[in-house]
C-alpha cells in the first residue's frame, strides 16, 4: 500500500501529463481545460491545507518548554550581591558609592544633552542630598550670582506642586549670553556642597553597608566577592544554553541546524579540527572533552572581550607608566590642587560678599551696595574666577584618580587590577572610554562604558588575572598550551582576534550537538524539522 507522498508524486506526474494532452484550440476546449485546472487547484489546495496543519502540529509537538523560575531567582541573587559589593568596595569613597561621580560626568557633558535631561540631573543631585536629610535652599547656591539666580528659580519650581520647568528655561535663556558657563558653575557649586556635607554622606554609606551586610550575612568585602563568584557560576550553569534555547535559535536561523547533521561537512570538520577520534571513543572521555570545551569557550569569550578593550589598557599604560617611580608617600599633587581650590574659593566668596553685602540676604538684589560699572565688573570677575576654578577642579579629578593608581601601581600590575580601578570609578571609566575609542556621541560613550563595566565586574574572569599591564604577554600561547594538555587540538593561530569567532562557532557546534544527542526529549532531525516548518510558514505569511 502506497503512502501519501508516493500517491502525490504519482498523481502530480499523471496530472501534468494530462494537462499537456488536453486540447485547447477552441473556446469550448479552453473552457474545459480551465475547468480541469480549477478542479485540480481545488483538490490540491485542500491537500496543502491539510498537510500544512499537520506540519504545524507536528513541529509544535517537538517544542521543548523551559521553566525560567530558577534563573530569575539566581539573577536576583547576583543583583543583590553586586549591590553589596558596590557598597563595600574598599577602592572608592562615598563620592562613588553615592553615585555623585556618575552625575558629575553627566553634568560635565551637559552640552551633549537637552534641557529636560539637565533638569533631571540637577534633581538627582538634590535627591541625594535629601537622602541624608539635607534640603538644599537657594542660599546654598552662592558660587556666583548667576548660579544663585538660576537655582533659586529651579528650587522654587522643584518645591512647588506644579513642576513648570519652562519658567526655569526662561531664566536660563536670560543668563546664558552673559554667562555661557552657567552649568559648569552649577557643577562646581554641587562639588562644594558635597564636600561641605561629606560627613553626612559618609555616615549614610556606613549605615547602608552595615545594614546590607547584616541582612545578607556578608562578613566583609572578600566574603562578598566569594559569594558573588559562586552566584555567577550558578547562574551561568543554569542560564547556559538549553535545548529550548537551541530550538529557538534554530527557528530564528541564528545558525543553520542542518550543519549539525552527522554527515554534514561543517560538523565533521569542527570535530576533526578540535578533538582526536580516540577522545570520543568512550562515553567518559567524551564527557570530559565536553567539560573541557565548555571551559575553553568561557576562556575564549573572556579573551575576545579583553581584545575588544585593549585600547583602554593601552591608554592606561601610556598615561601612568611613568608613575612607577613615584611614591605615594611623597606624592603631593592632589593636596596641592586641593589647597589651591580652597584658596580660590575663599577669594570667590569674598567677591560675592562684596557684590551683595550682608550674609543674611547674600544675593538680595534689592540691597546692592555696589552699582553700575563697578557691580558689572565684579560679577564678571566672579565668573572669571569660577572659570579658573573649573579648570582647577578638572586637574583635581586627574590627580584624584592618579592617587588611586599610585596606591596600586607596581611593575607586576595585572589587567584585573586596572579593571578594578575602572569598575570602582565610573567617572574615569567613561573618560577613558571616550579617549580610547575617540567617541563623541554621549549614547555611544555610555554604551561602551556599560559593556566595559560588565566585563570589569565579572568575578569569574580568569585569564585577565594573569595578564600584566606593563609587560608583553603571549596570552594566546598560554591558552593554547593549557588546552593542548587537555587533549584539545588548538594552537596560537586559532586564537588570533580575527579567528576567535570561528573557533567559538566550532566549540558551540560541538557542545550543542553533544547536548542534543544526549537528550531524550529531542534530536537534530526534529530540530531541523521545526526550523524548516518555521521557514515555510514565514515565507507563506510574506505572500
Amino acid at each position, binding site marked *: 500500500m502506497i*503512502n501519501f507522498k508516493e500517491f502525490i508524486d504519482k498523481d502530480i506526474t499523471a496530472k501534468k501529463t494530462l494537462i499537456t494532452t488536453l486540447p485547447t484550440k*477552441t473556446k469550448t476546449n479552453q473552457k474545459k481545460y480551465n475547468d480541469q*485546472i480549477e478542479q485540480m487547484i481545488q483538490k490540491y489546495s485542500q491537500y496543502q491545507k*491539510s*498537510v500544512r496543519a*499537520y506540519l504545524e502540529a507536528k513541529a509544535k509537538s517537538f517544542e521543548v518548554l523551559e521553566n525560567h523560575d530558577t534563573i530569575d531567582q539566581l539573577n536576583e541573587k547576583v543583583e543583590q550581591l553586586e549591590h553589596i559589593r558596590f557598597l563595600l568596595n574598599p577602592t572608592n569613597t562615598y563620592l562613588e558609592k553615592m553615585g555623585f561621580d556618575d552625575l558629575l560626568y553627566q553634568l560635565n557633558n551637559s552640552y551633549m544633552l537637552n534641557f529636560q535631561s539637565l533638569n533631571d540631573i540637577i534633581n538627582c543631585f538634590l535627591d541625594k542630598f535629601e537622602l541624608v536629610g539635607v534640603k538644599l535652599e537657594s542660599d546654598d547656591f552662592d558660587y556666583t550670582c548667576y548660579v544663585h539666580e538660576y537655582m533659586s528659580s529651579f528650587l522654587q519650581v522643584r518645591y512647588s506642586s506644579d513642576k513648570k520647568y519652562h519658567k526655569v528655561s526662561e531664566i536660563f535663556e536670560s543668563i546664558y549670553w552673559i554667562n555661557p558657563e552657567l552649568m559648569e558653575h552649577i557643577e562646581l557649586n554641587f562639588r562644594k556642597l558635597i564636600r561641605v556635607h561629606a560627613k553626612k554622606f559618609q555616615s549614610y554609606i556606613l549605615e547602608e553597608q552595615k545594614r546590607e551586610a547584616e541582612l545578607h550575612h556578608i562578613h566583609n568585602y572578600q566574603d562578598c566577592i566569594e559569594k558573588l563568584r559562586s552566584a555567577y557560576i550558578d547562574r551561568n550553569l543554569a542560564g547556559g544554553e538549553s535545548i529550548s534555547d537551541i530550538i529557538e535559535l534554530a527557528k530564528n536561523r541564528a545558525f543553520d541546524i542542518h550543519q549539525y547533521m552527522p554527515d554534514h561537512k561543517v560538523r565533521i570538520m569542527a570535530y576533526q579540527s578540535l578533538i582526536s577520534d580516540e577522545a570520543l571513543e568512550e562515553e567518559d572521555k567524551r564527557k570530559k572533552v565536553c567539560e573541557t570545551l565548555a571551559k575553553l569557550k568561557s576562556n575564549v569569550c573572556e579573551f575576545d572581550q579583553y581584545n575588544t578593550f585593549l585600547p583602554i589598557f593601552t591608554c592606561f599604560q601610556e598615561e601612568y607608566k611613568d608613575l612607577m617611580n613615584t611614591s605615594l608617600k611623597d606624592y603631593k599633587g592632589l593636596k596641592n590642587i586641593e589647597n589651591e581650590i580652597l584658596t580660590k574659593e575663599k577669594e570667590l566668596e569674598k567677591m560675592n560678599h562684596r557684590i551683595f553685602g550682608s550674609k543674611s540676604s547674600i544675593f538680595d538684589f534689592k540691597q546692592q551696595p555696589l552699582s553700575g560699572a563697578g557691580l558689572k565688573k565684579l560679577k564678571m570677575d566672579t565668573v572669571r574666577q569660577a572659570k579658573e576654578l573649573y579648570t582647577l577642579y578638572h586637574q583635581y579629578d586627574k590627580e584624584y584618580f592618579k592617587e588611586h593608581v599610585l596606591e596600586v601601581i607596581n611593575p607586576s600590575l595585572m589587567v584585573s587590577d586596572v579593571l578594578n580601578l575602572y569598575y570602582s570609578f565610573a567617572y574615569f571609566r567613561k573618560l577613558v572610554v571616550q579617549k580610547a575609542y575617540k567617541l563623541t556621541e554621549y549614547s555611544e560613550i555610555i554604551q561602551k562604558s556599560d559593556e566595559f563595566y560588565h566585563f570589569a565586574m565579572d568575578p569569574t574572569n580568569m585569564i585577565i588575572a594573569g595578564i600584566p599591564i606593563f609587560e608583553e604577554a603571549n596570552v594566546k600561547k598560554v591558552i593554547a598550551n593549557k588546552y593542548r594538555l587537555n587533549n584539545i587540538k588548538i594552537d596560537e593561530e586559532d586564537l588570533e582576534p580575527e579567528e576567535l569567532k570561528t573557533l567559538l562557532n566550532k566549540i558551540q557546534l560541538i557542545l550543542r550537538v553533544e547536548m542534543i544527542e544526549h537528550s531524550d526529549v529531542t534530536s537534530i532531525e526534529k530540530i531541523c*524539522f521545526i526550523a524548516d516548518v518555521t521557514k515555510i510558514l514565514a515565507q507563506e505569511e510574506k505572500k
Partner: protein
Amino acid sequence: MKKNEEKIGFDLSLLSLEELLDCYTNICDFLQFLEENKLETEEKETSDD
C-alpha cells in the same frame, strides 16, 4: 491525525519528517504550476469543432 485521514484519505503519521516536508513542497510547487498554466479566457477566437 484522524482528521487528516478523513480529509485526504491518508495517514500522514506514516511519513518520515523528510517525506512530509518534500510532500508539502511538491504540493505547493504543483499549485504554482497549475496557476501558471491557466489559460487566459480572452484568447484569439478560433473556429469551434
